[in-house]
């Protein structure tokens, strides 16, 4: 319980500025889950292999278990909780629900982050490109097919109604 050697990190989380005090070895994931109690971001491996901890760091998807807290200082971070408030999220959410893109749900927030990043980056990726874009996120339940279906469906909806994007 020695809090003497903590460091102070300032960052914008889901659009709101926050200041937290954490041990120097803390990871961005620890700030998000333990300090800010945003538990939608999951820890599946703690080693950058599963994507369950994915967040957007200054607009780019990262595995937050690999980001030292200090590196997040001054940055803007979006977690699933923040993303879920955005209008663009609606379409993805519907598609994942409708197409069976979640089962146990543990990989799901990370999957949503990855697919959000994809639709931001690319206007109409094909199935192969979707597979590539999601390859950093592991899912043990779905066999990935319904996740790919969900993303493809969201993209189709978005292309149908351009104002959705």
């Amino acid at each position, binding site marked *: 319980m020695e809090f003497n050697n903590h460091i102070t990190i300032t960052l914008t989380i889901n659009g709101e500025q926050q200041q937290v005090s954490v041990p120097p070895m803390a990871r961005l994931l620890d700030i998000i889950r333990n300090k800010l109690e945003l538990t939608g971001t999951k820890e599946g*491996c703690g080693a950058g292999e599963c994507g369950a901890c994915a967040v957007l760091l200054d607009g780019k998807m990262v595995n937050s278990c690999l980001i030292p807290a200090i590196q997040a200082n001054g940055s803007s971070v979006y977690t699933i909780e923040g993303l879920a408030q955005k209008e663009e999220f609606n379409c993805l959410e519907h598609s994942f629900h409708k*197409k069976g893109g979640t089962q*146990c749900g543990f990989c799901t927030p990370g999957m949503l982050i990855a697919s959000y990043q994809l639709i931001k980056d690319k206007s109409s990726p094909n199935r192969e490109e979707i597979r590539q874009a999601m390859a950093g996120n592991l899912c043990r339940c779905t066999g990935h097919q319904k996740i790919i279906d969900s993303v493809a469906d969201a993209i189709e909806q978005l292309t149908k109604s351009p104002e959705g994007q």
Partner: protein
Amino acid sequence: MQEKLRREGLAKIRGETKYIDDQSWPHQVIFGMAIRSPVARGTLTAIEFDQQIDWSDFCIVTPQDIPGKNRIKMIEDDWPYLAEDQINHYGEPILLLAHPDRQQLQRGAAHITLQIDPLPPVLTIEESLSEQEIIWQKGNTFKSYQIKRGTTESIFSSGDYQIFEQEYRTGAQEQLYLEPNGVVATFDPELGVTIYGSLQCPYYVDGAMATLLNLEKDKVRIVQSPTGGGFGGKEDYPSILAGHAALLALHSKQAVKMIYDRKEDMAVTTKRHPSRTKIKSAHDKDGKIAAIQIEFILDGGAYATLSEVVLSRGALHCFGPYFCQHVQIDAKAVATNHPPNGAFRGFGAPQSIFAMERHLDLVAAKLKLTPEEVRRVNFITKGQSSCFGQTFRERVDYHALMDIVFEQSDFHNKQQAFQKYNADPSNPVKKGIGFATFLHGSGFTGSGEDYLASRCTITARQDGKVEVLASSTEIGQGKDTIFTQIVAQELKLPHHQVVIAPVDTSIVPDSGPTVASRTTMIVGNLVKQAAAKLRDQLIETKFLASNYQPTQVAGAIKNYLAQHDTLTINTQYQRPEGVAWDDQSYSGDAYATYAWAVYLAEVEVDTLTYQTRVTNFYALQEVGKVVNQILAQGQIEGGVVQGIGHALYEHVLHQDGRMINNHLTDYIIPTSIDTPPIKVIFEEWNRQYGPDGAKGIGELPMDGPAPAVINAVVNAVGSQVYAIPMLPENLMEAMQS
């Protein structure tokens, strides 16, 4: 349509679902851990605590501190929560430690020294069988079974048949639920112990805690938290983890949290049993099996766990959907000094089915027949009886199933096209196509369901809704949605009027474990029966007209409850008529019904790098009624990919009894780019059992992919492969020999 969507789906998608490590607690929670053996076998002589540390801050639990029995309640009484003096596997828990601060906890753990006199470990099936070292009770065998029909020996010695003999192996496999094992235990002198956790079988944990802590049943309460996958890996293991947390909670009088990180989870929790299967079969020139002997052996690890039942399912499934008058199956589960192996989707069947389906392709190659021909002459049909004496009374038509898959996949044309493609020697990539025909029994084996005698309750609520109380757990398979659908359909209710009670043993009755492809078929049927009775009660008492409208149910319930105290219906499992199993002779109706399946895989093998890619997959199964298409497809697709992992990627690497690739960097599971398009096809022929005729499907998809994929690889390259996982180096070896 909207109604059939996963009930808790949106919460999961929005990241709102609170798994065990996401929940907040009203009181301080301290952190627990197990101090584990660094060796596979030995005698513990001393535990030394470094005097530099102030141990008064820690809660320490050793076997002497256990108020009840230091044994995990399971089939055998052999698995301790904490090793006493004999250490039987790497990672075996020796003592428990808890502290309010995680870093201090780690620091404390580093200052404990275990003095162990090592003993030679037994690490292979062969070493175990040799019994040079006896590592479990009086011998090294946990359990053996024999299935025998006819006289195989006289057929083999008759000289009338061609005989083929081969050995097959399958490796250990990690369930790799994405959420690691985790629990929180609380203790209150009045209320007793409560366990919150990620688990499949709350009543298993319930029974285990009562025995461990020597508490009355009403002083133990288990609450399932949303569970991030199980696949069998949270069937037995949560009992040990919960036990550890409960002991620490009892001694510290505080809430104790134990969440494994991935490395610990992979290193110490149960795996799929590695197997060795030897098959000797006699065939006529058409490939018809005249006699067959199968020796099926599982590496159970250090303790008996569920090995006996895994073995039983493996033995009963190994001869597959074939008919033969002369069959002998000898099955054995043996002890080794690996961490105990346990339940994993398929439960022994994927191992033995791999051997059988590979063997038939081998026989076909040797007899210059096609895999299709060898299977067609051997299929069992309705009215015939299996080698364990079960007469199939429903439509069992593998010819039709094969025809459907072959047509959908364009099998025959592709076979020819691939042959042509492969004839070009300048192209290092070879294409192959292969399949497997198999079955999977729904529900517990033999009399298992009778012993479980599962219960379910449905109760009408003051707000006019109907609540389902069952201990079946939602682990991603969609149980909440399925139960809702069943009740809604039976009562003609909108889905939002059905409430699924939290899985909390102080509220729900024991519906048996959430395993064995039994939740929809067995418990779903109890749910359906209860819903029907509730409706009938409302009609009989005239609160509801017999031709009622869905909108009238809520009002009828409210009116009923205004005049009566309760409207609660309990149902309990009863064996379906005409289904009989004899434990003594180990014969009869092993399962009330089966799912029948044909899986087909297409692969591309790069003969320069020896990489195999599955390019296309067809999964056809007859499963009775499909309750929910999307959920059912999701089960099949997920299982298929786990099966592909078992075949090509997932290699548990042991060194001196310890898993050394216990992280996702080196233990590879299929990602979205490794998974092929999967075409799932359901047939709904037989509707005798289960709600509206739904059979079990949870485990089935794990059985077929490995043999289908490896048969396709053999089809592509022409060399035989007898073991999985088949990594590139294994294929290289096979092709060079």
